[in-house]
C-alpha cells in the first residue's frame, strides 16, 4: 500500500454546509454528552462527501474544533482508514476490485479500460479533473465479478466494452445506471434459479 499523505494543495477554509451540519448534529446527538468524539469517523465521511470525495486538512481542523478534540487525533484517524481520501480524487471516484474472484473473471480488462479513458496511472485525475480510478481489494460483490464502485454505487458483471461505455457516460457528466450489466437482479442466478425450486418464496 502506498503512503497516505495529505495533498500539497490545500484549501484554506472548510465549513459544513447546512445539510452536512444537520447530518453531523444528528450523529453527535447519538452519543452521550462528553463522548461526542466518538462521532469523528462519521463526520469525516460527511466532510468527504461534501468536498468532492476528499478530506482537506482544513476539514480535519474544523472537525477537531467541532468535536472539541485534539487535531492530531482526527489526523490519526483520517490517515489510517483507506476510505478517507486525503487528496483530490474527482467528483467520480472509481474503485476497481482486483482481488482474486474479480481477477479470475477479468478485472484486468476493467483496469485497461480505466487506463485508456481516465488516466495512465491510478490515483491520478483525468484531464478534466472530474474523476480518477484506483485498484482496491475485495468490495464484497464477488458473485457479480468483475465489478467496480463509482462513488456509492456498484457496477457489476462488467467487461471491457461495458466499462468503456460507463466511463464515457461519466466523462460526459451523466450518472449511469448502477447494478448488474448482464441483466441480473441483484445477485440472482442467470437464466432463473436452479435450486430450491420447491419453495415459492425462497
Amino acid at each position: 500500500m502506498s503512503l497516505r499523505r495529505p495533498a500539497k494543495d490545500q484549501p484554506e477554509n472548510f465549513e459544513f454546509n447546512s445539510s452536512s451540519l444537520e447530518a453531523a448534529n444528528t450523529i453527535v446527538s447519538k452519543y452521550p454528552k462528553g463522548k461526542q468524539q466518538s462521532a469523528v469517523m462519521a463526520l469525516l465521511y460527511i466532510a468527504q462527501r461534501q468536498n468532492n470525495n476528499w478530506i482537506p486538512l482544513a476539514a480535519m481542523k474544523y472537525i477537531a474544533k467541532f468535536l472539541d478534540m485534539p487535531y492530531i487525533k482526527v489526523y490519526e484517524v483520517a490517515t489510517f482508514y483507506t476510505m478517507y481520501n486525503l487528496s483530490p480524487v474527482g467528483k467520480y471516484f472509481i474503485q476497481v476490485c482486483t482481488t482474486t474472484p474479480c481477477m479470475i473473471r477479468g478485472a484486468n480488462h476493467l483496469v485497461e479500460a480505466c487506463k485508456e479513458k481516465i488516466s495512465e496511472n491510478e490515483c491520478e485525475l483525468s484531464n478534466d479533473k472530474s474523476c480518477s480510478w484506483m485498484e482496491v481489494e475485495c468490495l464484497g460483490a464477488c458473485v457479480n465479478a468483475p465489478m467496480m464502485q463509482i462513488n456509492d454505487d456498484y457496477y457489476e458483471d462488467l467487461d471491457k466494452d461495458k466499462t468503456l461505455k460507463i466511463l464515457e457516460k461519466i466523462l460526459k457528466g451523466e450518472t449511469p445506471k448502477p447494478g448488474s450489466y448482464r441483466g441480473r437482479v441483484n445477485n440472482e442466478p442467470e437464466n432463473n434459479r436452479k435450486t430450491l425450486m420447491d419453495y415459492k418464496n425462497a
Partner: protein
Amino acid sequence: MLKLKVNNIDIEVEEGLTVLQACEKAGVEIPRFCYHEKLSIAGNCRMCLVEMEKSPKPVASCAMPAADGMNIKTNTVFVEKARKGVMEFLLANHPLDCPVCDQGGECDLQDQSMFYGVDKSRFKENKRAVPEKNMGPLIKTQMTRCIHCTRCVRFATEVAGVPEIGAIGRGEDMQITTYLEQSMQSELSANVVDLCPVGALTSKPYVFEARPWELKKTESIDVMDAIGSNIRVDTYDWEVKRILPIINEDINEEWISDKTRYACDGLLHQRLDTPFIKYNGKFEKASWNEVYKIIKSKFENTSKEKICGFVGDLTNMETSYIFKEFFDRTLDVDNYESRSDNRYLNLSERENYLFNSSINGIEDSDLIFLIGTNPRYEATILNARIRKSYLNNETKIISLNELGDLTYPYESLDGQTQTLKEIFDGKHKISNLISNATKPMIILGESFLNLNSSKYIFRKIKNFLLENNKINNDWNSLNILSCDAASVGNYDLKLINRDKNLLKDLKDHKFEIVYLVGQDNLNFEKKDEFIIYQGSHGDKGAELADIILPGSAYTEQDGYFTNLEGKIQKAYKASYPPGESKEDWLIINEIAEFMNNRKLFNDKDELESSMFNYLNLQKEKSSVSKNIEENEDADQFKSETLKIKIKDYYFSNVIARSSKTMIECNNSKLNFKSTGTEG
C-alpha cells in the same frame, strides 16, 4: 490481597496491579519498551510477554491485570522464544547505527537485544526509512529508529497536556510526528528524550557531545525555580554536558522542565574567571590580594551605615549565611536584603512564606485558587501536578487573572483586588466554594505579594482560612509560590531587613558601598556608589560593578537550598569553578580574614553546623512566638488591578540568560526565522 505465583515464588499483591507489577514485586525483571509507570498502559510493544498457566498463548504482562491464583512463569524456554520473536520483529526495521547513535550505551533496545536478540536477520526486504521530523531546538529526531512504543505520544497528551504528538498512518508505515512539524508548545517537552527507549528522540544540544560511560555523574538539586527538582549533573572534565532528572516522588516525580535541563550550557558562557577592577570605566584583571586590599580599605574608610548588601536568586544557603554573619560580625551592621522588590513578607511564622499544602498535597486537593501567579512558567513541575490532580479528581481550578493556556481548564476572574476582598470577606460565591471544600488550596504568587495592599489582603486571607478551619494540623490551605531557588532559604536565615526599606534607600543613593552576591535583578541607577559584585556570570550586576569577585555556579560548589515547601536539600559539587574563581562562601570568609585577621569559620563543616544551629534556633523561637499579630490598622485596603509580572521564562536568571539553547527556545516560541545576518 491477591495471591499468585511468579516462577514458583508465592507473593501477595494488592488488587488492581498488573502482572508486570506483581512480577517486579517478586523481584523478577520484565523487559519492556512501551510500559512506563507514570503513563497509561498501551501494551503495544509486546516485549513483556510471560507464560501464564492455562493460557495457550503468552500474555502481555503490562496490560494483564493480576488475579488470584495465577501461575506466572518468566524464565521458561517458551517465554524466551516469544520474546526473541518480538525482538526480531522490532529489529527488522531498526537501523544498525548504534555507533553513530547518541542513545548508545543507555539504550533499552541495545541492552535488551543483548538478551533476546538474534545475531543475524532473516529480514531480506528493504528496511523502512522515515524522514526526519522537526521537533524544535531541543529534540533531535531520527525516526527510522522509532519502534512505535508511543511513550512520547502518551507523555504529551497526559502529562504535558499538549496533545500535539501523534501516530499517523497506522500500520506498516506508522510514523510519530507533531502535526505542524514544530516544537512542542510545552515547558516539559524534553522529557520525551528520557522516555524514548531507543535513539529516535535524542537531545539536540547534547548531540554527539559524549558517551554516557565517559561522564561523571553527580546527584544534585536544580536552582532554575523554587521547586528544587532532583537532578543528575553529568560532567566531562570541567564541562557540564547535560542534566537529567532523578526520581523524587515528593517533588518532581520523574520530570524536569526544559529550563532545568538545558540552561546548563549557560554555565560555559559569560563566566567570570578572574577578579576584575574597574579603572576609568574599563575592567582590568587583578589578583585576589589586590581586590581584597581595595575592599578592606573601602570598608574601613566608610561609615558602616553607608554599607549595604544584597544576595541573589541562585545563592545557596551557606553563602547567604556567611554573608549575613559577615555583616553582623565583621561589619556590625544589618543592611542586608535578599528580596529584589518590595514584596510583602511576614516572617513571624514559617507558614507565611511556604507552600504549606506541599507538592504531593496538590493531588489530594479539591479546589485550587491561583492568585497572582502563573504556575506554568513560575513552577512548571508544580503545574504538571495540578494537571495530574485535575485529570485524576477533576479538581476545580480558579484563577484571579486570565492566564492563557495552563494545560488544564480553569475559571478566571477579573483580576481586581476588590474581588479578592469580597471573596475573603465571605461575600462572594467563591467564598462558599472555599469553605465547603475539604482540602482547598490558595496559591499566592509573587505578583500578589508585590501589591500595595498585599499586607491587608494577606491577613484577610489568613483570617478567613483560620475561621473556616482550613489551616490545621492535617491541612494548610495557605500556599506561597516562590519563584527563586534561594528565596525560602534566605527567609529561613532571616536575610531580610525588617526596619528599613533598603531598596528605596539604594535608589535614593544613600549608600556608598553596595555588595552584591549574585544579585542581578536590582533596578537602580548607579551614581557614586562603590559596587562589589560577587557572582558567576557577567550580567547586569557585573556591568555596574567596580570590583568583580568571580564566584561559582550551583554545579561547582556544595550548597543547601530550601525549596518552596520548606524542604532543605543539598546540591553537590559536580565540577569546579573556572579559572581563578572560588566558591562563594570562601570568598566572603577570606575578605573577613583579610579585614580582621580572623576567619569567620575555619572550614565548610563549621559553617554548616553553625548554620543548622541557627536554623534550629529560629524554629524554636517561631514556635514560641506564635500568635503575635501585627498592628491591625497599619495599612489600608486599596482597590487596584493585580497584574502578573511576566518574567521571561527562558531568561529568568543569569545562567539561563547566558544559555544559547534558551535563546533558541525563545526564538522558536516566537516563530523567529533565523536569517544568518543577525550576528
